[in-house]
């Protein structure tokens, strides 16, 4: 973290309303209907899952910090609010976002090494010439108007740990919820502290039913969260009600006293629930094929 979130470019320039985001995407579609029907792509969240998995592979052999992967994912999202994905080579954007994010998060990697790794993973989409990534970096920085500091929810989470006496299991779970929120639009919609609070609620309220972990078997968790979410909603509406257990009551009392936007927290919880629901349809093969066809047919890798 650097600088102050409240005065940050993130808050001033990179927070969108849902409507605005939908409008931007609709305008891309309007501009090139032919490409949209010729090159269908999976749900944005499924693509994000694919991008995230590719980023993890890319960072595997480098000493990359989780935060750099998170920053890279935010860069990709920001970039695609300015550019239609169908006019880009997503593999190049991914590699470049990773390369730039590593520099930003103080774990820089040499461009040759990054390009080498990327070529190892996607030889048909990444040219051996490192200047492609150099050029794309310039474009990425330009499109982001050189506003590159990203505030993440991780630090808020560590600050909340003593405050809410969270156990290490809860922290671990909340941490993975934060990792998952990058698969949605949430980082473009809400400030990081809202996401951190949402992650804490999810971790504390749904912990018992989530022993299996979130990834993979998402549907039962989504169901549990939907039901649990109702409880939270009910509890918030009826402060001090006899409903939930004391641990959760305490959390709700803290939340009610804090000045955190509760509506935003609930909305982001719902966003996460629907992510876990849509996750069921994820197919790496499908994403790979559709992206491959797009890049190859339009010669976007040249």
């Amino acid at each position, binding site marked *: 973290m650097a600088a102050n979130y409240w005065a940050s470019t993130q808050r001033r320039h990179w927070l969108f309303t849902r409507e605005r985001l939908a409008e931007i995407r609709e305008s891309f579609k309007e501009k090139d209907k032919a490409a949209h029907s010729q090159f269908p792509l999976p749900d944005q969240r499924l693509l994000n899952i694919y991008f995230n998995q590719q980023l993890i592979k890319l960072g595997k052999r480098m000493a990359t910090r989780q935060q750099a992967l998170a920053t890279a994912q935010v860069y990709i999202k920001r970039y695609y609010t300015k550019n239609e994905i169908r006019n880009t080579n997503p593999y190049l954007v991914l590699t470049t976002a990773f390369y730039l994010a590593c520099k930003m998060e103080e774990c820089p990697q040499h461009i040759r090494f990054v390009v080498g790794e990327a070529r190892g993973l996607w030889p048909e989409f990444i040219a051996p010439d*490192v200047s492609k990534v150099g050029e794309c970096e310039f474009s990425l920085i*330009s499109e982001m108007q050189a506003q590159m500091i990203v505030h993440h929810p991780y630090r808020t989470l560590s600050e909340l740990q003593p405050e809410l006496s969270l156990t290490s299991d809860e922290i671990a779970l909340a941490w993975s919820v934060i990792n998952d929120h990058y698969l949605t639009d949430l980082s473009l919609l809400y400030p990081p502290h809202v996401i951190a609070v949402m992650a804490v609620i999810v971790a504390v309220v749904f912990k018992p039913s989530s022993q299996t972990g979130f990834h993979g078997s998402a549907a039962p968790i989504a169901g549990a969260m939907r039901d649990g979410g109702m409880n939270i909603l009910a509890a918030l509406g009826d402060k001090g009600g006899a409903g939930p257990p004391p641990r959760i009551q305490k959390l709700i009392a803290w939340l009610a006293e804090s000045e955190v936007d509760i509506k935003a927290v609930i909305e982001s919880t719902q966003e996460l629930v629907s992510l876990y629901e849509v996750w069921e349809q994820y197919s790496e093969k499908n994403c790979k094929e559709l992206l491959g066809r797009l890049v190859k047919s339009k010669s976007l890798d040249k």
Partner: protein
Amino acid sequence: MAVSPLAPQSFQSRASEEVADREITEQMNDEVRHKYIKAKKLGEGTYAVVYLGHIRTDPTSFVAIKKIKVNTEYRDGLSMDAIREVKYLQELSHPNVIALHDVFSSKDQNLNLVLEYLPRGDLEMLIKDSDIHYGAADVKAWMGMLTRGIWFCHENFVLHRDIKPNNLLIASDGEVKLADFGLARSFADPYSNMTHQVITRWYRPPELLYGARQYSGAVDIWSVGMVFAELLLRVPFVAGNSDLDQITKICEAFGTPTEENWPGVSKLPNFIPADNNHTVPTQGREFFLRQFPTAGSVGADLLMSMCSLDPRKRSTAYQALQHSWWTAEPRPTNKEYLPRKSGGTRKMGDDLTRRGGELDDQFKNAARQLDFGSMKG
């Protein structure tokens, strides 16, 4: 503007649609670019060219435009210096930090930073110019602005890591501005390492000379103390000609670091145990008062608190700002009445093109290639 990840289109119709797609962001960039006019070149370094410019609609409102050379033909991507500078200046806004007004990309795919125009040179020029006379009230004014600037950086979790007189530029109204964020970084997470190869040698604190990889805002405070001393003496206070010489000179001046006055110092990677026959006791207030009589006893006390060998005992920027020296007599000079020097424009060109961590003129062989020829005339 050629934007890279967009592929050349094979069909004419596609190409025109792409143009439409590009319009919004390109227009925004063009708007910014057209807002300014680049006038003349002020200086050129290995990593940037600085131009004097002005707002198109108002020829009297000057700006400095720093064109970052994106490594020729993108061999290695954008340098860390450039990344850091843009990263922090985009977020930090304070009267004592150079302002970044705008960023735009030019047709030749260069990144242009539109910076506040600071025409009155830097503190180093004033210190070195024997024709300029200044006193304790002036030093207090400059130090106040410097300390507020660094306090603001630290408050925002940013370490500057290259505080020295020629990175302290002066605005037309006399305000001192912290510039050159090419070595800046955010505070590291606890227990994670940072490089110790930062801060120009004469301003580098003992913990970095000993190779500490975990450090705090105290590194900048040491540099602030060294600038303070230099303002008072008008020569650098501890000017070593190698890292080893620097640590020797620091020990001679301030005392030999030991486990007693600095617990843990002997565990630092490059710590050199003191020669038992030649140890200097830690200097007290009398030493500072004797060395820096112009500061007065209260000023000497502040300086001493910034020059503590043990970084944990050094005062923080916040503590420094609460020191009674600021409110003691003499009052700091009003910034409009501070001694000034002309010819700072060209100096700004130099200052903004230097790479981080370099000494200016003192070392003839410094790896710095400025094209002075282009600035004449």
